[in-house]
């Protein structure tokens, strides 16, 4: 694998780390199985790409993408807490609806960004040969800030209230926590992060495509699961760190699998590799426990 391919895997890993942090909030902290990601990730991409091609500042485009993502997460939560639609179903409805909305926003199935300014452009300069190093560096700064921001929030009174909402809603209400509001805000936060990832993704990939969201949730969940398997902890700052590392490791494994010629895997096998990797990460804790027990018996 060339250094450039490696940095490419690192770059996509960093973007999906943002998705994974969002998934961590919905699936793990709020205990809300949310598939909105498959719609909110391309939503962020569509909003950003449309605004950038319309001549707006890339950072402004990102901010609007974040707001759009937050709105989609809010809507999913609203369908659940106000209309009592099952969590999974509510998120599927929003995800499906967003497909049409994304097409409307872009006005076409795809929108190229070749030659358009991006958030990375000021750091790259005239020649593009530094892009493969600069883009991951800028992304790394963003991810670190997002991780630290999450650590700060979830250690605060409001953040703890949100975690209690996911862990034991009845107890949370008995402590005076407006659990419905917490779910609305938490889901908005989760999908804002995912839409932000989508906005950054289109700027590294040179364009938005309406089908770019397929499988986003699986990748995010894979990162969360790999992270908590490799670095099990109950401390929140370790959990967010594990999630980021999980996303990086996941993309690295994918890149390795696709680049190893002797296995014979091609780009179209990506989803199969994902399924196998996630399956493996899910059984790993049990496997580890089994091995450990056997060793214990011997000694």
């Amino acid at each position, binding site marked *: 694998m060339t250094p450039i391919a490696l940095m490419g895997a690192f770059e996509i890993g960093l973007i999906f780390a943002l998705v994974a942090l969002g998934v961590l909030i919905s699936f793990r902290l709020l205990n809300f199985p949310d598939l909105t990601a498959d719609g909110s990730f391309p939503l962020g991409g569509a909003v950003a790409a449309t605004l950038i091609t319309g001549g707006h500042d890339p950072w402004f485009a990102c901010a609007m993408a974040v707001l759009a993502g937050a709105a989609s997460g809010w809507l999913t939560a609203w369908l659940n807490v106000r209309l009592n639609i099952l969590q999974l179903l509510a998120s599927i409805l929003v995800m499906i609806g967003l497909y049409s909305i994304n097409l409307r926003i872009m006005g076409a199935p795809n929108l190229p960004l070749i030659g358009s300014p991006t958030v990375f452009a000021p750091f790259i300069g005239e020649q593009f040969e530094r892009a493969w190093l600069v883009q991951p560096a800028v992304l790394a700064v963003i991810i670190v800030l997002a991780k630290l921001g999450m650590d*700060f*929030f979830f*250690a*605060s*009174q*409001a*953040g*703890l*209230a949100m*975690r*209690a909402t996911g*862990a*034991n809603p*009845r*107890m*949370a*209400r*008995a*402590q*005076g*926590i*407006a*659990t419905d509001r917490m779910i609305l805000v938490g889901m908005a936060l989760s999908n804002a992060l995912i839409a932000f990832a989508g906005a950054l993704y289109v700027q590294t990939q040179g364009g938005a495509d309406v089908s770019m969201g397929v499988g986003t949730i699986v990748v995010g969940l894979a990162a969360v699961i790999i992270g908590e398997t490799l670095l099990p902890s*109950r401390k929140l700052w370790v959990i967010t760190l594990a999630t980021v590392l999980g996303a990086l490791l996941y993309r690295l494994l994918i890149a390795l699998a696709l680049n190893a010629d002797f296995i014979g895997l091609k780009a179209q096998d990506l989803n199969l590799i994902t399924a196998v990797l996630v399956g493996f990460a899910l059984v790993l804790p049990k496997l580890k426990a089994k091995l450990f027990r056997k060793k214990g018996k011997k000694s």
Partner: protein
Amino acid sequence: MMEVRDLYKTFNPGTPIENLVLRGLSLTIESGQFITVIGSNGAGKSTFLNAISGDLQMDSGSIHIDGQDVTRLSAWQRAGMVARVFQDPMAGTCEGLSIEENMALAWQRGKKRGFGRAVKNEQRAIFREKLATLELGLENRLGDRMDLLSGGQRQAVSLLMASLQPSRLLLLDEHTAALDPKTAAFVLQLTDRIVKENNLTALMVTHSMRQALDHGHRTVMLHQGQVVLDVAGDERHTMEVGDLLAMFEKTRGEKIDDDALLLG
């Protein structure tokens, strides 16, 4: 002071499993009074408690706490007035969070929650001091996950949590029912102490007549969604379980056949 007037609640109205649980329940609790509530299965004890806490909205009737009408307020809106310990030791705490995080949640009960750190050192010191009074060694385990604690330890911590902030009313929902007799006795003793120290107005639901007579100032018996007996003062002081049963049979003209109520 809490005033409950004419509460009615029917579950599954208009269906074959329609169940009239509360049928005009009224009760007044003076400030500083510790009241015990007994009743057989299906008497409406849990529904009554959930009505006061706000977990259940009533079909009709009213609930006032210190003159304020809270009938239509939801559970989280009442939390500043009503503290609660649940029957299930798992229900009152977050098992995935640490002891100090659980206590921090209770520290802000009914208050606004901002972006300040949830567990500050000064609070940690208070938590440690409070936990030390339990004499369970929990003061050295602030960072431990709640699910590492036994049922009795959890109920003890729940009681502490309920007393971290002042409340107009403390609800105890058969909070010793899931514990072994020795642990139950410890938690009850702790309950008496905490109620007394903080001069709390408390309502304890129990399945045991013995417990109901031994604790608090006043005992109320629920039957078919109404208050059928209400004893306090000297009369209650000299009362035995048998007397309570006889009194019930006299007023209702029927016998109690709930073993748990008699044997507990």
